[in-house]
């Protein structure tokens, strides 16, 4: 099935889009948000930024390089400072400086990883904090200059959403479109290195260049977001929408689209809420909304989410309760060499917990156990037969798992509770049985 012929996915997309669009009238009617010039600008900027970082973040998250954004974002600081020294306060040049410095930081990270035995986490830490320290020194040099004005570091860390103007949003839109275009151009290659790096390398793709390309795009996206959200919050914005989107789908294409939508949602809602009252900063609110989306996703997402998983677990538990109890009763009789010896309910509850009652009732209905008096049970003839078969199957499974490769048996992915006779061909089972007999012979000898 192609990714775009998935009805459920388009349903989620439509729902997210609806929430996204419906939020604007909702906020103005219910929350009394006033869509003045600044708020419009900030909202559009936040949404665009969410889209770009959501798309890029999918790759970073899937490649388990989420924190590369953190490194890059901190490494950009000296670039900002030097650009300020040379070119003054022009935003484009600050962006260029930041991008170059972030890029050099990534290069240094790769150099450390290639030439030393320092692992990724420490290498990131070293690069991050070395460059940041250098940047702080340069900034404090600038601040003590008489003509410094206010090149405050807090603007870099937290962003300055209120100061954003139309040109900045245009810049985000243009550069963001450029990033998406490049991603589309190299889609196949990037997808390949994301899922099977070695395969890509062996097949002659220029993996190092592709790595650098992706890192560069991340640098540019983060630098774009500095003005609106600041360093650390850009890191969150890169990761959160993608993690949320990952819960809903197993397709890269679907994940990217959802991630962009979630990013846009977080950007819009965060920006609008921050405008409701004084002292609510935009960047942090965007992150809090994005984190909320993540929590909702890991709770409610179908087939992966927490609720779904616990529901499935309960269903499985009930399904296997009967089988487990039957086995318990059988083993009890086995250990007492008397299958007619009654088993007390309390004992079974002690073994299996609360599912024991339900299991016993099922078994009684199927006619595998008999109730002797209120609190004890005994196996029926059919029950004994069934339990013996199951026990045998279990032992065969164990042997199968231990000696599968040695006996050259096919690899089957099957739950233990299945009857092995339904899964493996008779000739394979014969091999297993032969081995089991040999085993017991060996042990007795």
């Amino acid at each position, binding site marked *: 099935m192609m990714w775009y012929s998935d009805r459920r996915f388009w349903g989620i997309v439509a729902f997210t889009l609806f929430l996204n669009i419906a939020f604007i009238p909702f906020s103005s009617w219910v929350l009394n948000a006033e869509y003045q010039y600044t708020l419009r600008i900030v909202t559009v900027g936040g949404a665009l930024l969410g889209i770009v970082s959501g798309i890029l973040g999918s790759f970073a998250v899937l490649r*388990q390089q*989420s*924190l590369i*954004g*953190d490194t890059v974002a*901190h490494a950009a600081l000296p670039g900002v400072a030097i650009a300020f*020294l040379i070119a003054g306060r022009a935003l484009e040049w600050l962006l260029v400086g930041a991008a170059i410095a972030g890029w050099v930081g990534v290069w240094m990270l790769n150099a450390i990883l290639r*030439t*030393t*035995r*320092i*692992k990724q*986490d*420490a*290498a*990131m*830490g*070293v690069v*991050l*904090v*070395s460059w*940041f*320290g*250098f940047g*702080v*020194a*340069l900034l*404090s*040099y600038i601040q*003590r*200059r*008489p*003509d410094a004005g206010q090149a*405050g*570091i*807090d603007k870099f*860390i*937290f962003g300055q959403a209120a100061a954003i103007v139309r040109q900045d949003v245009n810049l985000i839109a243009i550069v963001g479109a450029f990033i998406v275009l490049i991603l589309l151009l190299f889609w196949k290659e990037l997808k390949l290195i994301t899922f099977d790096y070695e395969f890509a390398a062996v097949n002659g793709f220029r993996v190092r260049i592709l790595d650098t390309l992706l890192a560069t795009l991340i640098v540019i996206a983060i630098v774009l977001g500095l003005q609106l959200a600041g360093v*650390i*919050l850009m*890191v*969150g914005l*890169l*990761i*959160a929408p*993608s*993690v949320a989107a990952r*819960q809903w789908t197993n397709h890269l294409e679907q994940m990217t689209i959802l991630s962009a939508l979630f990013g846009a949602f977080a950007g819009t809602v965060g920006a609008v809420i921050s405008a409701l009252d004084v*002292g*609510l*900063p935009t*960047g*942090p*609110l965007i*992150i*809090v909304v994005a*984190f909320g989306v993540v929590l909702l996703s*890991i709770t409610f997402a179908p087939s992966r*989410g*927490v609720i779904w998983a616990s529901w499935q677990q309960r269903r499985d538990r009930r399904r296997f309760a009967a089988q487990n109890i039957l086995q318990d009763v059988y083993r009890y009789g086995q250990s007492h060499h008397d299958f007619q010896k009654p088993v007390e309910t309390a004992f079974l509850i002690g073994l299996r917990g609360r599912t024991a009652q339900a299991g016993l009732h099922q078994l009684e209905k199927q006619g595998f156990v008999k109730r002797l008096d209120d609190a004890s049970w005994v196996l029926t003839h059919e029950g004994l037969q069934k339990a013996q078969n199951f026990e045998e199957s279990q032992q065969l499974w164990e042997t199968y798992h231990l000696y599968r490769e040695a006996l050259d048996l096919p690899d089957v992915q099957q739950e233990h509770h299945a009857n092995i006779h339904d899964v493996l061909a008779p000739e394979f089972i014969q091999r297993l049985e032969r081995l089991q007999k040999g085993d017991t012979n060996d042990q007795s000898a």
Partner: protein
Amino acid sequence: MIKALERFIIEVLLWVTTPDDINALWAQSPRNTAILIGALIATSGALLGTFLLLRRMALVTDAISHSVLLGIVVTFLLITLVLDREFDYSSPLLLIGSALAGVGTVFLTEWLFQSGLIKQDAALGLAFPFLFAIGVILISRYADNVHLDIDAVYVGEIGLASSNTNSHCLTNCEPITITPDDPRAITVRRCMNCAAENLYPRDPRAEFEEFCGNCGTYTPSEAVRAEAQGIPIYDDNEERPTFVYWPKSITIMGLIMLLNLSFVLLFYKELQLTAFDAALASTLGFRPNLLLYVLLFLVSITAVGAFDAVGAVLVVAFFIIPPAAAYLLTDRLYQMLLIAPIIGVFATSTGIDLARGQFLGVFSVNRLLEALDDIVGLGGYTEWNVSISASMVMMMSFCFIVAWIASPRYGLLATLIRRWYQHRQFAEQLLLGHLYNHQHMESMADECSINTLPMHLNWSQHQVERIIRNLRSRHWIEIRGEQVMLTDSGEQHLLLFRQQLMQK
């Protein structure tokens, strides 16, 4: 309690020195205080950072130091708004509250990771921006109440540590009460009807009231402060109280350092085991996770203690860079635990000079700026006077780069040299082997002539000549006419080498 401890240290010090000397050493010398505190932070950080590095959790310090901000804000709001007490950076409540926030980040990360839906790195990258964002929102929301300077949060100012002191009075410590009949009381006249009738004191209509200007009870430190403002408290010939001023950060960081050191010494064996083989440690009945959380709790405490000195981000450097540099220099854990603090202390004590433009006493940044001013123009502002903590971090990076390049075993230079040596050795053995294979054969004249060797070995003429020169100087080959011959010792060497190779 902390004050009692300080008092005890001061009493001990007074056996060997005078109060003035102690004051000159710390409170009046920002430089000494900054170096000492920097060294204490560096030691604390390096001891803990080593184990985090080995467990591949170095970036956790970054996350912790960010979410410590949330802990600080929440504790601050609790102290000032709920308990209605004055806020102090060195309050133990703050230490514990923020440390809990740090450990909370790790719990949140673990929880997200344990759900099985999120990878470790993404979980970390989600958890700390979120907690950080909440911290920032709280700061902005209560901006009127929170006197937290955001720049200081990020950078810290270690140079100011010497001015935040506890004063310890040593002599003449009785509080002084001045009553109106005290001979020291000074009488001041105040115009009574000036404000009401809009008169000036010189106006003849002004009426005056006599009152006592300096009456009241003064603690010794208040008395000294009042005197410094020109209000007479003591008689001229009366003895003033003597004080020792003790920077608060020294005590706090010293305690934290001792705590970390004793933790590492006490649990050295367990830490070593869990750092290298957590699975084995847990099979042997240790509790690696419990140990890890204690470690992270100490990391958080250290980060908070260092917070107002070096700031939230730069403190990460003290945890990561020195252990990383030490990791390049040695393979032994105890050596790492020695080298990392030494690097840290070296970087902090030289970093303070770098902040004023002196790099290890050999290079002046101001000169560089002057030169740059001539070339690109810096507006004539060539004085390099920057954040001390950032300079300390820069020195650490410098140490790391030196270790990276020059480490005897793992450095770039050592690797280059080793590669070059192996290259040469390989070429020599190839040539010797070629000669050996073709000696006493008919094709020898063709195969082993100086002129044909480049073709057969696919080397340049120049390379062949160089290697022949090397081998001749060791008398492994000789040249007869154009023919290159293996000598006896050369043959022996080759066979020995091959034998060794087989044994490997």
